[in-house]
């Protein structure tokens, strides 16, 4: 590994072959669109990129399928999560006292019996909050503890601090609450009836949709429901706070947004931000569920630490996690469309009615993003995208991978199927007829789609490699001969906008230190939740310095090293933090080059960093040797890098601009089989072709694509959130809420990267990959509808999401002209 020469040597000549650069010819490879996916996934062969990039770069680490940096630790159980941190002596444990009613007023709270429980050290109530009773990310409407207004069942009313978690969990049940309860709003319809919203309505569009639809040769309209989704990160919400001196506090939080945790802890404790440090080494999954909603638990732990003066930990029980934290928004989409005989849309109008829960949380952005994706990949001459952010007495819905985009997109994919059913055309042909193309490439929000050819050629490639047309025929023949079992097929596209739609969030910081032994300390504002951000950014830094990966020490995200960061969200992690780290490492490298040029009397352009050495003219020295020399020469070997995304502008008031730096594309083709007597079903085969630009790490990217697809498939099939009339969440644990298991994954699952380069200057021309793959699962939903459609092709299929066996059987019965009530 690292060399540690005892005596600095002026220079050493490389021995032959040791550092000889690889031949530079054979730029080879191509961006041809006719990539053939391998017969079966899992082989690393397809990841093997040429060592030399097409742009002439000689890349050692970038584009390599390196395993997750924590992989060996994960498999041995030594990767440390917050609940694994060795507790200091005297650590206390916190449990939440919850409201048993969904709506009403808290008249009194009697916690005497709680306090008297042996082992209980403190009971935290409203009176213990030194600062603001507000843990919201933006709008001031999420109290830490109920003041008087009760907004949802399970809402935190108080907290118990005890010597063990078991004691705390048992003690919370002893509180006596007097509540005057009211009838809660649970559904979209309840909220519409009451006219209650968490934020103002918002709409944009172009043209007179009503008139265009009315005048169109064909018209359809309908109501389409899309269910929510529980994140089900395997590691539940957890935070650990250790009080320091002068009232400061160190908070370990399983959060995607350490900066927000820091700021909100300070706000609630009434101390300056600088007194609070939030650290996050890794999360056991986030998926958006720890973007804003990890904060409350971190704040609770910090408040407990403040009140007791002892280290305090809170780890939610899984059921409490389900009940107390928000989910993907469920939507009712009221749509109408006018189109011609070919299925070409002339006008599309949609009302996106989002169930936000009791508070705004991130619903401004989530529903905006649903609106931004209501067009998906399709040109709409006249269009009206409207939205309501409805208030219900349920937990506040929040970010979830895709951030509203999947809902907006699924609605238009459903409409594409509706058009196909009405025209009798193949659904894929209807989609082709509507794709953005040259001259018809302005989104409803006024942004130009510059890469119109990418998606079209990607979809055409997938159509071929998935044998879509042949299988369409085979399936028709199968269905004709099979009265009970029906197969379905669908190929759906994804176009997903990359950037936070709040422009100011598109920035990131990184901190790089180079130590005297040549080891590198890497820190940045992005958090690791399994997506492989840390390894990708480490690859960037190792590449920049031309050093071995082992030299780069990945360190936990902390607000003390990189301040004022954005959440790790919006798929932006490697775009933003990779660039910031490159800026930081590049600045240090620049100073090293300047020093070496002077010390060795060699022009700067003849200095190159690679193979763990620095080539200076005709000589080379080990990297760490040059580092030592630099330090000796008083060169600064530390740098804070900063990056902000260029080109983006968004004027929300006018509903126009360029909210996205670029789009990421993908498409999936899924085949399913449905038992029309029970609604049971299975995905038989899925082919995916996805655009990650030029991949930073193909193994990590494939992992995001496959994992995202399966998670999306769960959302649209077996994952069903059921609320009772009084506001109880009835599906609050894995026994009742069913995410995909191994056997649900298509037995034939073919995933390939589409060879493409990002036309924008992103980090090594890669594209973001975190969220877009979720929407590849739209193909599963549409294939299920296609299978049901085979029962009676003369009728549209009344299938809503999630397509549970019950929802599918209901649609089958309707298709057969029977009602299941």
């Amino acid at each position, binding site marked *: 590994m690292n060399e540690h020469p005892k005596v600095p040597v002026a220079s050493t000549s490389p021995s032959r072959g040791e550092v000889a650069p690889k031949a530079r010819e054979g730029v080879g490879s191509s961006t041809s669109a006719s990539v053939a996916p391998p017969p079966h996934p899992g082989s690393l062969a397809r990841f093997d990129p040429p060592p030399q990039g097409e742009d002439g770069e000689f890349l050692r680490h970038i584009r390599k399928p390196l395993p997750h940096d924590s992989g060996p630790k994960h498999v041995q159980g030594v990767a440390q999560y917050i609940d694994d941190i060795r507790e200091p002596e005297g650590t206390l444990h916190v449990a939440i006292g919850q409201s048993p009613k969904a709506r009403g007023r808290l008249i009194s709270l009697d916690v005497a019996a709680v306090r008297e429980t042996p082992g209980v050290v403190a009971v935290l109530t409203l009176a213990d909050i030194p600062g603001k009773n507000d843990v919201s990310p933006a709008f001031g409407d999420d109290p830490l503890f109920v003041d008087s207004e009760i907004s949802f069942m399970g809402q935190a009313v108080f907290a118990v601090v005890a010597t063990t978690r078991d004691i705390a969990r048992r003690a919370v049940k002893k509180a006596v609450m007097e509540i005057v309860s009211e009838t809660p709003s649970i559904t979209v319809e309840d909220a519409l009836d009451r006219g209650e919203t968490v934020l103002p309505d918002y709409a944009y569009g172009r043209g007179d949709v009503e008139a265009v639809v009315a005048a169109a040769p064909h018209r359809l309209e309908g109501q389409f429901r899309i269910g929510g989704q529980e994140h089900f990160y395997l590691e539940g919400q957890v935070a650990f706070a250790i009080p320091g001196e002068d009232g400061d506090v160190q908070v370990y939080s399983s959060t995607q947004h350490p900066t927000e945790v820091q700021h909100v802890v300070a706000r609630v404790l009434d101390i300056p931000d600088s007194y609070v440090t939030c650290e996050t080494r890794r999360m056991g999954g986030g998926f958006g569920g720890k973007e804003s909603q990890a904060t409350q638990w971190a704040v609770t732990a910090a408040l407990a630490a403040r009140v007791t003066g002892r280290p305090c930990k809170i780890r939610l029980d899984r059921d409490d996690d389900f009940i107390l934290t928000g989910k993907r928004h469920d939507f009712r989409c009221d749509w109408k469309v006018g189109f011609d005989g070919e299925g070409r849309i002339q006008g599309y109008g949609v009302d996106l009615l989002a169930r936000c829960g009791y508070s705004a949380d991130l619903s401004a952005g989530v529903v905006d993003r649903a609106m931004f994706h209501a067009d998906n990949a399709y040109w709409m001459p006249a269009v009206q995208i409207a939205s309501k952010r409805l208030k219900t007495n349920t937990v506040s819905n929040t970010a979830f991978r895709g951030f509203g985009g999947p809902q907006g997109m699924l609605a238009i994919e459903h409409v594409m199927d509706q058009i196909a059913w009405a025209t009798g055309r193949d659904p894929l042909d209807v989609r082709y007829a509507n794709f953005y193309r040259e001259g018809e490439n302005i989104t409803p929000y006024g942004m130009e789609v510059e890469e119109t050819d990418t998606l079209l050629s990607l979809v055409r490639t997938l159509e071929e490699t998935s044998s879509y047309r042949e299988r369409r025929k085979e399936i028709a023949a199968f269905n004709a001969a099979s009265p009970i079992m029906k197969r379905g097929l669908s190929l759906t596209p994804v176009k997903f906008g990359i950037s936070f739609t709040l422009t100011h969030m598109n920035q990131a910081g990184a901190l790089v230190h180079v130590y005297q032994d040549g080891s590198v300390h890497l820190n940045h504002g992005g958090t690791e939740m399994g997506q492989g951000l840390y390894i990708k950014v480490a690859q960037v830094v190792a590449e920049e310095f031309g050093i071995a990966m082992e030299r780069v020490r990945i360190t936990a995200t902390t607000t003390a090293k990189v301040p004022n960061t954005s959440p790790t969200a919006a798929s932006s992690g490697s775009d933003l933090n990779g660039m910031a780290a490159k800026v930081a490492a590049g600045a240090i490298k620049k100073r090293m080059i300047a020093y070496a040029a002077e010390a060795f009397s060699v022009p700067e352009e003849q200095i190159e960093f690679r193979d763990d050495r620095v080539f200076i003219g005709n000589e080379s020295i080990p990297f760490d040797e040059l580092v030592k020399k630099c330090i000796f020469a008083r060169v600064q070997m530390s740098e804070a890098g900063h990056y902000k995304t260029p080109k983006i502008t968004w004027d929300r008031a006018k509903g126009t601009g360029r909210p996205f730096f670029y789009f990421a594309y993908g498409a999936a083709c899924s085949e399913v089989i449905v038992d029309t007597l029970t609604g049971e079903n299975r995905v038989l085969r899925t082919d995916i072709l996805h655009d990650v630009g030029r991949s930073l790490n193909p193994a990590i990217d494939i992992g995001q694509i496959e*994992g995202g697809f399966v998670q999306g498939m769960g959302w649209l099939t077996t994952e069903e959130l059921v609320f009772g009339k009084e506001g109880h969440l009835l599906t609050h644990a894995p026994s009742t809420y069913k995410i995909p298991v191994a*056997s649900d994954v298509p037995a034939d699952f073919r995933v390939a990267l589409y060879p493409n380069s990002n036309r924008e200057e992103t980090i090594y021309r890669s594209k973001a990959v975190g969220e877009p793959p979720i929407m590849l699962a739209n193909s599963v939903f549409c294939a299920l509808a296609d299978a049901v459609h085979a029962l009676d092709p003369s009728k549209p299929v009344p299938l809503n999401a999630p397509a549970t066996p019950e929802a599918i059987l209901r649609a089958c019965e309707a298709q057969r002209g029977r009602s299941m*009530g």
Partner: protein
Amino acid sequence: MARDAIRFWRNGQPIEVSGFHPRTTLLDYLRLQERRVGTKEGCAEGDCGACTIALGRLKDGRVHYEPVNACILLLGQVDGAEVVTVEDLAKSGELHPVQSAMVAHHGSQCGFCTPGIVMSLFTLYHEAERPLGRDGINDALAGNLCRCTGYRPIVDAALEACSGKPDDLFAEANGATARGLAAMADGQDLVVGSEAHFFAAPASEASLAALYDQHPDATLVAGCTDVGLWITKGMAELEKIIWLGRVSGLDQIEDTADALTIGATATHAAAYSSLASIDPDLGELMRRFGSVQVRASGTVGGNIANGSPIGDLAPALIALGSKLELRKGESTRVIPLDTFFIAYRKQDRQPGEFVRRVTVPKLNSNEVFRAYKVSKRFDEDISAVMGAFKLRLDGRRIAEARIAFGGMAGIPKRAMETEKALTGISLDDPSSWGDAMAAIARDYQPLDDHRASAVYRATVARNLVFKALSETASGETGATRIIGRREALAAAE
């Protein structure tokens, strides 16, 4: 003289633990007492598998490893076993084959489910029948949820790692560990605690009968796959726990020409192949029953005694005409299984009485059995509807029908009206099946809950009658099933 400490094998040596609270789970012991935190809590209800550890027990003189959910396993239940956790696999810096395959195939992302997956694969590595296919691995992983990867790389890792003969330190130490376990098996009664609160594990049926008679307020625990949730979720203040797992002979499975008799503490895993030999549909039901972890802990007797309206075994065993034997003190009695279930969570069981064994008649050559488990998710899910049919044929006519459903009432219940309507109908005349399909609506007023609506359950039940009849008429299942096709199961034999 009862022993007052549990003894188990850990890292090559025996460990004794006493003075623990009867409710203490193995997971809490590992994380809070041993401070070995590699094993994770994901759900605390035995559904996600993050807490999976391996228990080694003696079987035919060798140590046999099974995965269990440590979150709902009581600490006392590891008495006499070897406990293997994720930290134990890598030795002197070298990863275990399942660990290195997981890394090489990018099988971990967030890593939180990974320790549990590694331990499930560790047991598969040791116990799998080879060669393994994707389906076999999917079955082995049905009790391990991963939210990040989409499973494909994990299955690939398993295909690679679990393909050869076991060759690791545990295989090497198997003989020594087996001797260690044998030496710990003292056949003594075990009581940790006091008269007021204890964890007891009687070693004989006589001790059990006496102890339970003396403490009818104690909670009997076999696998603890349900009682575990009373503790972790219901916060039940259980103070007296009697574990049946050490009662000698109570786990006996007797297989005779015309019946199968399953002792109350035989696990689902142990009874699996015997039940499957009665009918492939029963085998398929067992394959989908819970998960490997749940089947390794949960017992046939527990699934019955528990009295859940949604337990999968009871409807199948009722349809087969099973009988239940109960014991209290010195006296035993035998009742038809369907009469055991009186009302929601109310069984025909006296204070101090326990389930001893269940006898399941085998099928005659003129009898047809069909079972259907319908749930939101195929694997590791509780049924919305579970229907079981036994049809006695007289040529192409149904001479007698015996049908039971789960999920359709407060108890597992027979469909008497449908049975009557089916009697005498012809398999060759589908137009005559309508009455029977309609009759099921008179048999049940199904539940309406988060798993399914009442109307869905009623519709499915009606359609399952049709499915059973058409499959019986055609003798085929290819056109009526997505999974569990009998032709495929027969071919795999």
